[in-house]
């Protein structure tokens, strides 16, 4: 007898169809083997599947069982194949209708008591199933809402017995529907907490509207990190398509809370500066998304930018330019989207005294140069907005609370919709100003393009359909200065 089920393996974010076949024959000794380039976690499925089936009311066939995961050339890892393996064995031994099983894709991990657990990447597998023309997916009840986002009937089951009952037609299960519950906005730190720093706040608003990268430089304690942490609170909600992309990445990375559906809030990631290049960019023997991809459509905050290793800083350039990370490994090549708003902070010198009128900087010029040179010209060029944040005077701190995130967010939402409907166009006078700036300032070709982009955002925030000279002028004020690389 032969049982067959369909499941999906992930290569990066890409689902690959995997057929699970179980073959039973009578032999002298009962045996159970899994073939088809299955990794360790996948080999251990033997134990989980046998115990899971035993602890339900089903019989484990005392025969020679061979399970094949095809195509055999594709490396398979993880525990998501468990229920497909269990169900094919049961189908092969005639305990459930094999034809019905073949209509479903299956994904999920099995517990020793037969319980079914969700696995990472369920939404990606569900999308693969939908693309392969399957209409139903068997998965854990926890991940049914997530799977339903792929536009497939997601049959959520809690236990292997429930799955078998359903396949036999003894039990009805209402598939999870593709709903997005209106969720109250998450509790984020509010911009009203930041006193003073008008210029920094303005730059933050521009970064939110135009998806620009922002570098905040200044002495410690001036609120750079505080501002950066508040960027998510003024971002517009994700579009449906963006939300799906974000959900997919976080599902594959396993950072999705169980039972959650669509991720609607832009993600926020703030890795520590000790993080390795693989953790930031993505990597592993089987490619996994890194922090830059987990921050996709959201915010990546790199606090103390020059403290990150050179490897990390240089590796950041690819995602910053292309919006995508390509991780090539023996275990396959992963392409991960990584379109994020980068907010980075740095001091003006290693001791932190520079830019603070009350402190005397004790750094030698060579030390300052070494500190700043870690942030290469090439990386600095990728920041559209560079803002120095000097220490505010006491009177500013005593000032009343500033605008709240909700007020700023409303302006950002208007600006974003303006940018989406029609890009503001530069007037002749604005182009003239930009050209004269290129002549007079050390501005590279890339720098000029960045200024032009920021000017569009300034115009959109002003509700203007034309980019006027004053918009270009403001954009010029945030250009990345040469002064930050050579003291």
């Amino acid at each position: 007898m032969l049982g067959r089920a369909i499941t999906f393996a992930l290569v990066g974010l890409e689902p690959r169809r995997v057929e699970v076949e179980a073959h039973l024959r009578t032999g002298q000794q009962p045996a159970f083997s899994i073939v088809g380039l299955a990794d360790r976690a996948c080999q251990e499925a033997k134990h989980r599947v046998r115990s899971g089936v035993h602890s339900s009311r089903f019989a484990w066939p005392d025969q020679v069982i061979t399970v094949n995961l095809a195509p055999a050339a594709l490396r398979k890892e993880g525990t998501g194949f468990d229920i497909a393996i269990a169900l094919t064995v049961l189908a092969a031994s005639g305990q459930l209708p094999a034809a019905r099983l073949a209509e479903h894709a299956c994904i999920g991990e099995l517990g020793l008591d037969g319980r079914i657990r969700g696995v990472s990447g369920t939404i990606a597998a569900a999308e693969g199933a939908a693309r392969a023309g399957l209409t139903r997916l068997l998965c854990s009840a926890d991940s049914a809402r997530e799977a339903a986002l792929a536009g497939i009937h997601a049959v959520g089951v809690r236990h292997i017995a429930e799955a078998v009952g359903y396949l036999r037609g003894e039990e009805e299960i209402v598939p999870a529907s593709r709903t997005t519950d209106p969720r109250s906005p998450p509790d984020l730190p509010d911009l009203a907490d930041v006193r003073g720093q008008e210029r920094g706040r303005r730059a933050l608003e521009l970064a939110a509207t135009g998806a620009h990268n922002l570098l905040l430089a200044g002495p410690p304690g001036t609120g750079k990190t505080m501002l950066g942490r508040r960027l998510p609170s003024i971002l517009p909600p994700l579009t449906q398509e963006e939300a799906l992309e974000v959900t997919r990445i976080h599902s594959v990375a396993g950072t999705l809370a169980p039972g959650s559906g669509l991720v609607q809030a832009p993600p926020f990631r703030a890795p520590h500066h000790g993080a390795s290049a693989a953790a930031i960019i993505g990597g592993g023997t089987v490619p996994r998304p890194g922090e830059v991809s987990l921050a996709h459509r959201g915010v990546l905050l790199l606090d103390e930018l020059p403290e990150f290793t050179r490897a990390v800083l240089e590796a950041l350039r690819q995602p910053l330019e292309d919006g995508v990370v390509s991780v090539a490994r023996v275990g396959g090549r992963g392409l991960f989207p990584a379109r994020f708003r980068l907010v980075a902070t740095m001091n003006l010198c290693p001791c932190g005294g520079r830019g603070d009128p009350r402190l005397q900087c004790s750094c030698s010029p060579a030390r300052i140069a070494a500190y700043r040179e870690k942030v290469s010209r090439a990386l600095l060029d990728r920041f559209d907005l560079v803002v120095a944040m000097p220490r505010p005077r006491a009177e500013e701190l005593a000032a009343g609370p500033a605008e709240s995130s909700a007020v700023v967010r409303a302006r950002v939402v208007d600006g974003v919709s303006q940018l989406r409907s029609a890009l503001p166009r530069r007037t002749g006078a604005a182009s003239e100003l930009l050209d004269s700036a290129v002549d007079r300032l050390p501005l590279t070709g890339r720098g000029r393009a960045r200024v032009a982009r920021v000017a569009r955002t300034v115009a959109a925030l002003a509700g203007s359909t034309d980019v006027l000279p004053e918009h270009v002028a403001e954009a010029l004020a945030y250009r990345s200065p040469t002064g930050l690389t050579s003291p």
Partner: protein
Amino acid sequence: MTVSVVRRGDGSYPALLAQIPDPPSRLWLRGDAPPELLDRPAVAIVGARACSGYGRSVARLLATEAAAAGAVVISGMARGVDGEAHRGALAAGGATVAVLGCGIDRDYPAAHAELAGAIVAAGGLVVSEYEPGVEPAPWRFPARNRIIAGLARATVVVEARERSGALITADFALEDGREVLAVPGEITSALSAGTNALLRIGATPATSSADVLEALGLEAQPPMQTIPDDPVAAAVLNAVRAGAGTPDELSRATGVGAGEIAAALALLELAGAVAVDEGMVRSTIAR
């Protein structure tokens, strides 16, 4: 790289340098400019390597206006004040001379290799008393400073700590009987301790480029900058002159939002009226 040598006793050996107590026996020159460049009226602008934004912008301002009036700006190509002095002269399209404390083929600091190239390309010279291959060493820098002071009719110290190399240059200049000027600084800043001490013992205060040009016997050129015709920019410039230091302080002083302040500052910067450095705004036009 064109390198030539002038020897003491040659007709082309700089006359002013020949007058100092221990002139170098030969001088290596890098660049296509004739050695006669070293006989033109020259001002040395020197100061701290770890200077403040104030020091940087003053060095640049003085160098730009001195070069625009036809003076050759001499300095030591170090980081900080020296580098800004060379850049200021280049910005005015003037000739500038960098005196090295290492072999003529070296660029020290290495970060200023590009600056050295720009100096030569703009018709200036890089000079040294050391033959190619000599490594930079701390004890060579005071000797280098005697050449800087010796080539210049006047020496301006922009910012200097209490025991700064720039003060050694000033000492040489005094010994050579040349004019010494110092830029007044805050009395509480360690970076101004050296310059304020010079003022105390009788150095001429350099309060504008006119003071420097007077010491050289040159006429000031009318300023190249034109203040943009914009009411916000005018208000911002007034506030900068009244002492507002950061864009946020300008916001408060003028009652204009951060975005408009940024735009006004960019226009003023393009016009050469202000410099924005590490978040601090300074006027670059002498009153």
